[in-house]
């Protein structure tokens, strides 16, 4: 599984970074999400799902499989 962010929609609330800093951070210019590791370790799955569900903009999505 990997995580995909829509940067058009992200407004930099940084809820994802607060909830799962292993996978998400924010950039220094616009404060938008940066995915540190798009294919995350299985033990992080719960935290990643929490981050996705708490994004107020719906900018994050979990996709199946690895990058084509």
């Amino acid at each position, binding site marked *: 599984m990997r995580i995909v962010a829509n940067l058009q929609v992200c*407004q930099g609330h*940084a*809820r994802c970074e607060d909830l799962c800093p292993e996978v998400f951070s*924010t*950039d220094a210019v616009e*404060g938008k999400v940066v995915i540190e590791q798009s294919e995350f370790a299985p033990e992080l799955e719960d935290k990643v799902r*929490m981050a996705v569900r708490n994004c107020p903009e719906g900018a994050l999505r979990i996709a199946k499989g690895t990058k084509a």
Partner: protein
Amino acid sequence: MTLQWAPSPPDHVPADLIVDFDFFQTPEGLTDPVQIWHDLVRRGVPPIFYTPRNGGHWVFLKYSDIVEGYRNHEIFSTYQTPIPPIEPFPVMQPQGVDPPDHNIFRKLLAPMFTPLAVRRMTDGLQHRAETMIASFADKGGCDFIADYASRFPTGTFLDLFGLPEERLPEFLALSETFFRSTDPAVRAQNLTDIYAVLEVLFRDKERNPGSDIASTIVTARDENGNQHPWQDILNCGFLLFVAGLDTVTNTMAYVWRYLASAPEARAQFRERLDDPVAFQLAIEELMRINAVSNIFRRVTQDCEYKGIQFRRNDRVILSNTLANRDASVFQNPQAIDLDRQVNNHVTFGVGPHRCMGSHLAKREIMISLQEWLRQIPDFELAEDQDKGSIFGGSVMGFTSLKLRW
């Protein structure tokens, strides 16, 4: 504030959508100003209704409509929105500008308000919290608003703008008048005074730029290499002055008022003092339940939304406290659950104008609370707390909050 009835409700509003609601008025005996909004839901008024008060405006009650109001800037504009209407109103940068032009000042400010930038302010905020709380910790009580919640964000503002601490009383006086005065003549003079201060400040930073926000704004260049229009620079300074003071003050007031009467919640926060992630999660719930701002929009064109006719220039209020306690989005919405797992609150707005100061505001509150609990682990509402010291309006809150310990 002069309260005005529109001569009569406009003819595009059907009678069954009209509710008499004045968001400045808090009934005698009420102790929590957000309740005037939740009463509307309890009364079962239509989810989108029109009130003729304060020049006439719509109110959205549901989370989904409020979020649409934030996101759909083509219909719901932030340009010239005050309720009751004041025209012309300063075009606050970037809040009063719609995309795409909105992005000019938003981009300019963004690097100074990112989580990374705010983390760098931690030491300064920590120092301010420590010294301010230490100044009254052994006194056994304080007026939380006057002694802390208004001084802390105002001091932070001075830091951001590269101004010396000695000017705190002057800025406290300016903001006190701005937020609390209802006399039109006093308000007009106060606006003139604030702009005069900003003019001197930006001229000074233009000559002697530092690493502060005012210097960054005044020395920034547009895509043609020119300074931004002077009036926009002043209006951006003005927005930063009004956006981050009363909001933080009253959010803090709500949080401390709640903790003063909730010993279990105080204990839960104390237990989390060494676990910033858990502390942060609990703060997020306090942000949801204590949403102090009601946000205005102006309809840009005659149109139909959800089967209702809107006319160009109609005003709309998006009340964050209503969105945040919508039972179709939040489980057990009126309850404070410090372990709430899914919490998409809109206390800082959503969409293009999402509060740029949200990371700073949360950090101000978090550091203040951590330091407070270290120095004053237990506290309660003082018996002489005046029950009537509340106000409604675009920011809701308290004029005093007496605590003792």
